[in-house]
């Protein structure tokens, strides 16, 4: 049985941490911030791996594999483009 109360608890605390941390992000970096958070939220990949790789009926695994592909694309392009943009910010 899933303990929904502790999940809700995690959600509320994580949102407050998120608001606190994001508020301090440099205004210069909003574009890379968006690609970074996008890559991070592609952690949905862990769910897709289970759906695609476990011993489920093929139709379900196809849905999982497409989801896994979509998340993986976000992870790869998100981190790479964030890094590429951040490299450009120079002080002088």
């Amino acid at each position: 049985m899933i303990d929904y109360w502790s999940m809700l608890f995690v959600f509320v605390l994580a949102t407050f941490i998120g608001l606190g941390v994001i508020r301090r992000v440099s205004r210069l970096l909003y574009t890379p911030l968006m690609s970074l958070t996008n890559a991070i939220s592609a952690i949905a990949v862990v769910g897709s791996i289970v759906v695609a790789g476990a011993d489920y009926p093929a139709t379900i695994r196809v849905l999982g594999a497409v989801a896994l592909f979509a998340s993986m694309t976000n992870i790869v392009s998100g981190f790479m483009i964030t890094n590429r943009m951040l490299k450009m910010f120079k002080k002088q």
Partner: protein
Amino acid sequence: MTRSIAELAAVLAAALFIFALYWMNDPKTARHGVIAGVTGMTLAILATWIQPEIVHHGWVMLAIVAGFAVGVPLSRVPLTAVPQRTALSHAFGGLAAGLVGTAEYLLGVSAHPAELTAFRMSALVAEVILGFLTFTGSLMAAGKLQEVKWIPQRPVTYPGQNVVNIGVLVAAAVLGVFVVNNPTAPWAGTAFNTIVALATLFGVLLIIPIGGADMPTVISILNSYAGLSAVAMGFVLNSKLLVTAGALDGSSGLILSIIMCRAMNRSFTNVLFGAFGTVQKAVTAGEQKTWKQESVEGAAQLLEQASLVVIIPGYGMAVAQAQHKVRELYDQLTKRGVTVKFAIHPVAGRMPGHMNVLLAEANVPYTALVEMDEINPEMPQCDVALVIGANDVVNPAARYAKGSPIYGMPIIDADKARTVLAIKRSKNPGFAGIDNELYVQDNTWMLFGDAKAVLGDLVRQFGSGGLH
């Protein structure tokens, strides 16, 4: 044993993700954030992959390789295309959530009906609605930004639009309540598919009335939805890591949306249901002033004699790909002892931070990029304000013209500078929708033409032949 490894990896990954965002508070440390993010992600993926229930390794491998094959080229797009890429990645995030939600529902109905509790079903329905509306909404936004032919660029409005949109969403939610209460009823499958279809439709309808100027806000809101769909997925899959990462993404989107809305003096509902850029009637009554044109030589002279020049870039700079020429002008002027600053309006461009990234690409030091609130007190001391492809963000009508759609929007006080030089592509004043009286002020001179070409001519004036 493998279960404990997965739990430990999840805790580490969550901590690393928070650090990644924390390091974004300064351009000096920001790249540590990428390393932290990649490390956390790799740990989480490996720890999931080694679980005993994963048996079809070929499938996982194939999907990961395909993800790399598409992801790597997507990370190499020109920086002017970053808004589209961002919208596209929100679409992928939404799609992943929607598909996993659908798979979990099918799995629950066929194998574990007891697991489809009311709470889990609610999370599942929320995941699917948010996921699929983010998917099509972001695809539409990406299409508009990419200027795909069959997606109308201009906002499309019709009578009763908001009633239709909200009706579609309410219908999906009502069906959702039925499915939550009877997840295994004979009709539940059809109802579930209808929810998917309605959410997909709602995403399209939501973006149709949105114009280009609203894109920074809309992208931020879609960012938030993508995060929330990941949170809902976390609830469905019982993954605290997913809930945490989704909440971080969601709160980031929320903060950016609030900042964008404030920078336009509008509310969320006004952006999503207000159809900016459609009902703009010429509010300028009375005498029609006309603009004065300046030659490139004259403009170069003005710039050279200045001691403080403030450059105000807008979307026009991105369209013309003029950021490198801007940098050359910056070099020429600073070499001559002129102080040059860049005034960045929060909604300049098509996504948050768009101008900063383009100027950083052209090697403009980030210390020269100044936010609107910090530059405005300095504007009366500014000798020349050089407006490059910006329009609404410098329109003085925002201060007093109550009938104007941009009324109340905070602007960069370009008009308070001693002299204003404005580079504008077209002489046609009506094109942008709103007349900008900055262009007809007594101390404003216009330079007409493509921003890149005009700046190239300006820079040439500072070269060997002209001024020195």
